[in-house]
């Protein structure tokens, strides 16, 4: 029984961390219409930033500042924000698919940078990070539970922040830009500035997710920032429902559960002779879920609730 709980805590931790990244993407795509195809670059910047700032010094590695954990995590978010600011200045004049291609390129460049820069750990990645408060709580279940609570608090904070943000006049402005940029401009708004703000804010949130991810595994390597992660995060948002924060979180839990449970179920119930093929079968199943979703419910499980203004919302 304790095993099941321990696994569920572990699963929920990873899913919560990914949820934070999906919420960041939801701000960019769901609310502002920015097609970020390079989620991993910002996720990775947060992850690498956190480990470099927070770990003790190692031979031939940049950083090793040994900052207190929360400061390191915050630093990781800032680094993600700075990367987003630079990328945003360069690419945000691009629209839709062009922006997607440009940001995808940024993500590939990021992966190649960390893979080749020995100062950033190279292909071997950064290991040997001491998880915060490990000495106090040991290494086992208690620690994982407390870390989950920590992640959950951050997820709730992010969620509440974003909910309030999109309910605010600024949130309306984001949607106005998403729907019709020229119209927004004619009302005296500056779409390019707002787009940049939303892009950076979303990327900082992804950086937070990356920092938590690297902390949880006490390790990060270029293998963690492959384009597949961008794809996974997008799949979670699309299935959950772009534009709806609840959908973003539910979509993450659902897709990640499908991703892991299908592997578990196949390993348990598939006959021995197809055991070797379960990996491939799993990919097919996941593909089916996503394609099916796009065909039959393209707006996602929890579609965006469009209201003209908060005051016009009818009770309930």
């Amino acid at each position, binding site marked *: 029984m304790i095993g099941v709980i321990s696994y569920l805590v572990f699963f929920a931790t990873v899913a919560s961390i990914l949820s934070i990244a999906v919420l960041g993407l939801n701000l960019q795509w769901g609310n502002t219409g920015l097609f970020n195809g390079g989620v991993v670059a910002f996720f990775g910047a947060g992850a690498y930033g956190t480990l470099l700032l927070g770990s003790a010094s190692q031979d031939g590695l940049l950083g090793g500042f040994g900052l207190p954990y929360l400061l390191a995590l915050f630093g990781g978010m800032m680094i993600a924000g700075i990367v987003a600011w630079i990328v945003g200045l360069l690419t945000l004049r691009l629209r839709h698919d062009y922006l997607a291609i440009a940001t995808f390129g940024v993500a590939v460049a990021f992966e190649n940078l960390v893979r080749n820069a020995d100062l950033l750990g190279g292909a071997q990645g950064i290991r040997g990070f001491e998880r915060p408060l490990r000495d106090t709580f040991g290494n086992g279940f208690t620690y994982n539970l407390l870390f989950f609570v920590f992640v959950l608090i951050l997820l709730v904070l992010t969620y509440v922040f974003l909910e309030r943000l999109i309910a605010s006049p600024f949130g309306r402005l984001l949607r106005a830009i998403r729907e019709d940029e020229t119209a927004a401009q004619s009302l005296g708004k500056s779409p390019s500035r707002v787009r940049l703000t939303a892009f950076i804010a979303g990327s900082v949130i992804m950086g937070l997710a990356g920092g938590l991810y690297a902390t949880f595994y006490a390790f990060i390597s270029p293998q963690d920032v492959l384009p597949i992660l961008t794809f996974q995060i997008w799949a979670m948002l699309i299935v959950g429902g772009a534009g709806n924060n609840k959908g973003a979180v539910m979509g993450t839990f659902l897709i990640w559960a499908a991703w892991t449970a299908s592997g578990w179920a196949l390993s348990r119930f598939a006959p*021995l002779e197809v055991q070797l093929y379960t990996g491939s079968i799993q990919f097919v199943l996941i593909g089916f879920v996503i394609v099916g979703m796009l065909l039959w419910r393209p707006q996602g499980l929890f579609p965006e609730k469009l209201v003209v203004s908060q005051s016009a919302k009818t009770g309930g």
Partner: protein
Amino acid sequence: MNGLKTSALAIGAALAFASFGTEAAAQECTTKIGAVLPTSVDWGKPIAATAQYAVDLANEAGGVAGCEIEMVLRDTQVDPKVGVDAAKALVDLDGVQLLLGAVSSGVSMPILTSVTVPAGVMQMSCCSSSTAFTALSEEGKTNGLFYRTFATSGVQAAVGAMVARDEGYESVAVFYKNDDWGQDIGGLVAKDLEALGIEVTASIAINDAQASYRAEVTEALKGNPQAIYMALYPKEGTQVVREWISLGGTQEMIAANALKSDEFKENVGMQFLGNFTGTDTASPRTDSASAFVDAYTTRFDGPPNGPGLANSYDATMIALLAIHAAGEGATGADIAAKIGSVTDPDGTPVSADAEGFAAAKEVLDGGGTVSYQGATGNVLFDANGDVSAPAVTWVFSESGIDEKQYISLTEVNDFMASMQ
């Protein structure tokens, strides 16, 4: 690809047979062990099938510590998140005390730091070669729970340099796969070559899945090297060699064991591989190694011509013997502590088949120690759970892959020491 498909089918069929065999010899209890391997990747399937094969043999020999072994296999998709989750599920939900895997160091490492070490589960990797594991162990962060049967890249790099010296090459260009394994071995071989006074004209990283490597190949051609060294996998290796030869590069080639595959040979063409020499750490000239090749050939309708197969077999066998030595209800730490009594050079030598397994169990039950003579020779772990190994060089021939020269463990160690 057709050949690959048939061999995969053969493996599937062999597994199906295996299931009938084990059911017949069913024990009263079952011990679960976990395996996290990249079964969704072509070359990962045979590695998993080989591990399952070793488990079947152990069950044939009456099981382990009185119980039948059930290997629960999970796919890593070569994705760290997925691999770690699979490992965590195996440890928490199935309660395994032994985890086999993973293949990529980038997957094995987070499993080690966030799953197996915190849970006190022993992890045995067949194929992770990164030197980072050695460093982590030296820092005392593995708690002695990590072992691997894949020699660190140092041995192969040294032998690669030795081949270049013996062939009389004066300049060599190095191509390496741009991952942890490739960067490791590429850097080491360049250092070794220079230590032998051989000029390294270029060290070129090869990224996965590019449509063409013309730019990389052209870069290497500039230095006009007498030979090339390749630490590449069959997919990129094929592409690089094709472009290299079509642009007029030399056919003098040295390669690490990852290219030891029929797929590579068929796709490049034998006529270009006459001066190709490969290195490997994994098939020493011992009776136990050839016994493995024979047994494998019988079981899977073909010789073990893929990376990591012998290592996967030994990893599984040694771990199972250690479980037996540790007795019923052993924890990961108990099992890890028994590795030494299974691979004791002064112990009773035992072979790596069902009879050997049964014999080993008897010796261990009597409180003795055994020296496991495996598919990769008499495996011996150092304090960090690393193995050194004798080496072989091999060549491609019309009929398959032939061993060229056997370099014993002593020769390897002496040669490596001479370069220091």
